[in-house]
């Protein structure tokens, strides 16, 4: 019964995506092909907008909220998205993603990115296996050491898994600027496919050292907190979009903020989180159409700083 209700909700979402009044303007504004970037270590093409799950997918076992998260995943994948990111730290988010993927019959396009987050290196493999079962995937595409916790032991485990073809990519994350020094040392000395860091129009510390180093070491950059956990979009909610927004095909601040990030060539993928299927679709549109050049990026940064 619960499943049939969810399928009905999904059907409504799909019909809405096919051209309802709500989605019409979004679809009408969808220009050009989806922007992808090659993963530096492999060349595999990855869409520049992904899907985060921090807070938004931690809804426990609430059936209505789970159905809505399923709609988010469906909208994300239907609009060309691939990379979905989660962590054992995110409460029920992994189980909710697993539920959504099950409802959607385990879509082939998925690029599964999860993390290992436990103080003991010895307990890492058990945690990874538990995460894998919650997602319901045979293996992860990417596993990252979360917030540098016990990173030396976990990186050994992940590299071993990659060598045994039980994992495709290895990464490490931090969402805290104060730990960038430690992250840089790891990037300089260890083989990594990805690092995940915070980057947005106002928090741009990574431009100084991390982005150039990633280019040099062929490390992909995954960007978390593109909207400062919603603070930026909230602060800009009632501010009219400046004229430049139309030049880059943006109909919302969220798209402009995302285009600012993904226009940086060193960024592999930005992972905004949302619990709203329409926002998931809107975010994916930021991966299409014209991107701001360096001059417009400076202008966007100045305007956002002035308005917030």
């Amino acid at each position, binding site marked *: 019964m619960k499943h049939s209700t969810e399928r009905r909700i999904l059907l409504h979402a799909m019909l809405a995506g096919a051209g309802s009044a709500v989605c019409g303007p979004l679809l009408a504004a969808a220009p050009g092909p989806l922007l992808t970037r090659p993963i530096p270590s492999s060349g595999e093409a990855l869409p520049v907008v992904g899907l985060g799950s921090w*807070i*938004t997918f*931690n809804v426990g*076992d*609430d059936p209505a909220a789970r159905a809505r998260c399923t709609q988010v995943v469906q909208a994300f994948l239907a609009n060309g998205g691939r990379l979905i990111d989660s962590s054992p*730290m995110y*409460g*029920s988010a992994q189980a909710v993603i697993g539920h959504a993927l099950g409802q959607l019959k385990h879509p082939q396009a998925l690029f599964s990115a999860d993390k290992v*987050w436990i*103080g003991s290196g010895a307990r890492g493999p058990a945690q990874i296996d538990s995460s894998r079962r919650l997602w319901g995937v045979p293996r992860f595409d990417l596993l990252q050491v979360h917030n540098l916790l016990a990173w030396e032991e976990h990186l050994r485990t992940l590299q071993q898994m990659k060598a045994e073809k039980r994992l495709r990519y290895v990464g490490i994350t931090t969402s805290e600027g104060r730990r960038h020094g430690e992250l840089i040392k790891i990037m300089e000395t260890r083989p990594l496919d990805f690092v995940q860091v915070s980057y947005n129009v106002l928090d741009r510390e990574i431009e100084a050292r991390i982005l150039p180093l990633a280019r040099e070491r062929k490390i992909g950059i995954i960007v978390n907190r593109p909207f400062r956990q919603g603070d930026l979009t909230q602060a800009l909610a009632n501010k009219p979009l400046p004229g430049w927004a139309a030049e880059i095909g943006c109909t919302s601040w969220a798209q402009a903020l995302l285009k600012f990030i993904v226009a940086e060539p060193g960024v592999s993928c930005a992972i905004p989180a949302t619990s709203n299927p329409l926002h998931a679709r809107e975010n994916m549109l930021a991966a299409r159409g014209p991107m701001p050049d360096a001059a417009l990026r400076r202008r966007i940064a100045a305007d956002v700083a002035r308005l917030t």
Partner: protein
Amino acid sequence: MSEWWTYRLSDLLMFSKATYFRLFELQNLALWPFQLLAVGIGVALLICLVQGGARAGRIAALLLALAWLHVAWNYFAQRYATINTGAPYFVLGFALQAVLLFWLASRKREPRLAQPVGSLGRLGLIIAVIALLGYPLLAPLSGRPWTGAELFGLAPDPTVALTFAALLLWRSGLMLWIVPLLWCAISTSTLVELHAGQAWMLPILALLAMGARLLTAVRSRG
């Protein structure tokens, strides 16, 4: 859980305001009509506080112990644990307070409730009434559905608020205040981070009860 030390308070908030308050709705829907029993127990507690004396004090300690145990199991272990990986610690904390209350109830002389006379006594009753009637009103007053009402014996904050009233009227020593005050700090931090309007309700009730308790201690020495 050594990983927690690397985070700020805002980093630890892993759920949205809607998800947090939805838990009470889901709990109420799952437990109905248990709420009637919880309200009955709350009213019985209020009668104990009004009556005062040793027997009422013992019954109040027993009823409160059951309420803490129920919140530990049904709310923290069954509900909150689905969205907060720190919930097992709250299960232990609330279970510990239940044990302390059972211990209090088992003592021959200790759990005597003071007669709720004078302004300090009346303050205890007012806190109890707010816990029983005020907390359920927060949901509709904040634009949430009635079905999400926070009830004594089911939700942690009204249970702790009513406990503050009892601790004041028991003239209780410090030991029984520790867990309620710790929860008060945790709940307030959570609700402040969630930008919930009711964030300061529990700490205000705690401060009133603590202040009144300290005043009675000073007066009894004088």
